[in-house]
């Protein structure tokens, strides 16, 4: 009955996660769960079972790459698409690599809400 797509948003910037959550949920198409600490991301993924994970790369205590590896190592979660949303890469770098950085699709910050939505729709499990 719940047709909304479940999005797990992991980023240490609280203001950013608040605003992106508002934008995404405002579309009415998504249910967004936010984690601001990288080490909380995997447990949250296990319980929340997201349809897609938006993951920052540069975070204190644990980089996003490690979080992605944890998730990919879990058979229950390994097919959950992950999209990196990061200031560590530049738009042209992403473009030059056909949108894939470190085996995952990637979106360079700052991106507009529309770009994030397009990215989600492109990679989410249908």
């Amino acid at each position, binding site marked *: 009955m719940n047709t909304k797509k479940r999005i797990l948003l992991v980023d240490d910037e609280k203001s950013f996660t608040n605003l992106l959550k508002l934008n995404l949920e405002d579309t009415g198409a998504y249910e967004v769960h936010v984690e601001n600490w990288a080490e909380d991301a995997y447990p949250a993924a296990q319980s929340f079972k997201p349809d897609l994970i938006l993951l920052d790369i540069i975070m204190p205590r644990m980089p996003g790459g490690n979080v992605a590896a944890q998730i990919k190592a879990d058979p229950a979660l390994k097919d959950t698409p992950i999209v990196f949303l990061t200031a560590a890469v530049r738009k042209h770098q992403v473009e030059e690599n056909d949108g894939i950085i470190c085996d995952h699709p990637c979106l360079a910050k*700052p991106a507009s809400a529309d770009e994030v939505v397009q990215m989600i729709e492109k990679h989410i499990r249908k």
Partner: protein
Amino acid sequence: MEKPIKVLLVEDSPVDSRLLQLLLGESKTMHFSWTCVGRLADALPKLRDEHFDVVLSDLTLPDSHGFETFKSLHAQAAGMPIIVLSGTDDENMAFKAVREGAQDYLVKGKVDTHVLVRSITYAIERHRAERALHESEHHYRHLLESITDYTYTVRLQNNLPTKTVHSPTCVSITGYTPEEYDKDPDLWLRMIDPADRAAVIEQAREVSHGKMPPPLEHRLLHKTGHVRWVRNAVVPCRDQNGKLICYDGLISDITERKLAEEKLVKSEAFYHSLVEHLPQYIFRKDLHERFTFANQRFCAMLGKPLDEIVGRTDFDFYPPELAAKYQRDDRYVIGKIFETIEENKSPLGERLYVNVIKTPIHDVAGTIIGIQCIFWDITERKQFEERLQKANEELARSEAALRKSHEELKSAQLQLIQAEKMESIGTLAAGVAHEVKNPLAIMMMGINYLNRKLTTPDENITTVLKEMRDAIERADSITRGLLNFSASRQLDIKPQDFNALVDETLRLVRHALSSNEVELIREFGEKLPKVGVDKTQIQQVFVNIFMNAIHAMPQGGKLRVRTYARQLTETTHFEGMRKMDRLSIGDTAVIADVEDTGTGIADEHLTKIFDPFFTTKPTGVGTGLGLPVSKKIIELHGGSLDVRNLKEGGVQVRMMLKAHRTLT
């Protein structure tokens, strides 16, 4: 009237004194002036201070008695006649005084005027005669003593000496008297210096046989032991019948002359030794340019003995031109000292330098009678000086080279410092850019949300949100530029057709060209070698260069793009140009010159155009990162990017890249 005769009367008895004066006063022929004293002590100072024609003195005085009185007076009055007055009782003593030098004695009471006058007159006359005799004797003795010659006569019988007579002056020369020679017949031979005896004997033998031997100079020993030089001349004498009876000899003392001669000889030897042992060449000439003297060194140089040089001139030894020059110099010397350094050629053609000093020669009267020349070889010194000068010049040259390389080093150091500065700016910028991106992302999300929530379309709010969104994009583009600048890129090098690459890039700015009314002039070289480059990077550089050119021509203009290849023969360097010189001489460079007809770059900006964030464009048009990033990209390719103002206006950007080596 004749001069009165001055009389000193020494008489203690006033009566006797008066009586004598009365007696003499009666004389009709003579006049007397009197000085009378009564004591010896008064008489002596008078005699010392005045002259008297005669002294009359009593011998018995209050302060002196008898003969002592006479002795005291005689000692004091050496040049004056003294007449002693005595009583009858001491006539013997008066007589003794006469023996000792008194002129006369008179017995008091037994004299009259006549006796007295005669005695005084005779005393004066006798005394004068004695003096004259004494002086004459003295004169002749002096004369005799100054005679340095004496004669001797040797009587002969059958050519053998029988008797020898020496003249008295032999004493002054030999110290022996004629009598001594008389007593000792061998004395004359013994006193002759043993070394000279044979010669003297030979002379005597010859003259004894009637010959006329030449005068002989020899030494003899004076009685005191001193050596004296004499000249001994002999002449044979014959009687009326021509028979040899004796010979006369004249001995002259020539010691002084001999000593002077010896001194002269020594002095000559001294100067001769100097002149012959000095390392200089020395010669003298007379006023007719004839050599009068040359030292052995000079003789050796001409290769002739002295007697073949003396009397000749320079023309006998040197080529005519040189001889004429020497004589010119000589004439110049007359009246002054002349010093010069001459450059000559040796027979082997080597250059020789000679230091010459010429001075005039004067005779005793000061008249110039010739010239003297001293010269010496200073070739070695000259060569040393030349070497020194050369070394100095080389030193100066290497110093200049050193300074130049120092300046180059300094310039390289400045470039390094600049590069380091750029690196640290890049590192800083990368950090800042990353940190700025997150806040920008948050703002972007906020604006997205507000847009979405704006239910009633309000034009102002829409505008505000759009402006904010544009601002975020601008900030983002700056951070992108910073990151580009700081990134150490991995270049994707591939051989590319340079003209095609330029053409493709020009298409990207086609719109900007036409909208700014810029006319494009393409002058592409044919058959350019390929370049090994990262295509997108080089395109980015070209876009930057083209956009800068277009922005420099807001009123429109011409953009000239010229491509060509050239082998580098020198490291390029233009005035007022920044250069990155990675290309070396001999490399083939593929070059693109991009020229605009715009405003040019102010001189004070020319040094800053490669600094990050330096821009003269309005805010929002330029980030100040275009040229620094471009330069960095070209550097990574090992090429160079130079910017300069053109004389005719506008700017030329020259990109040089190495031609790709086609082996790959």
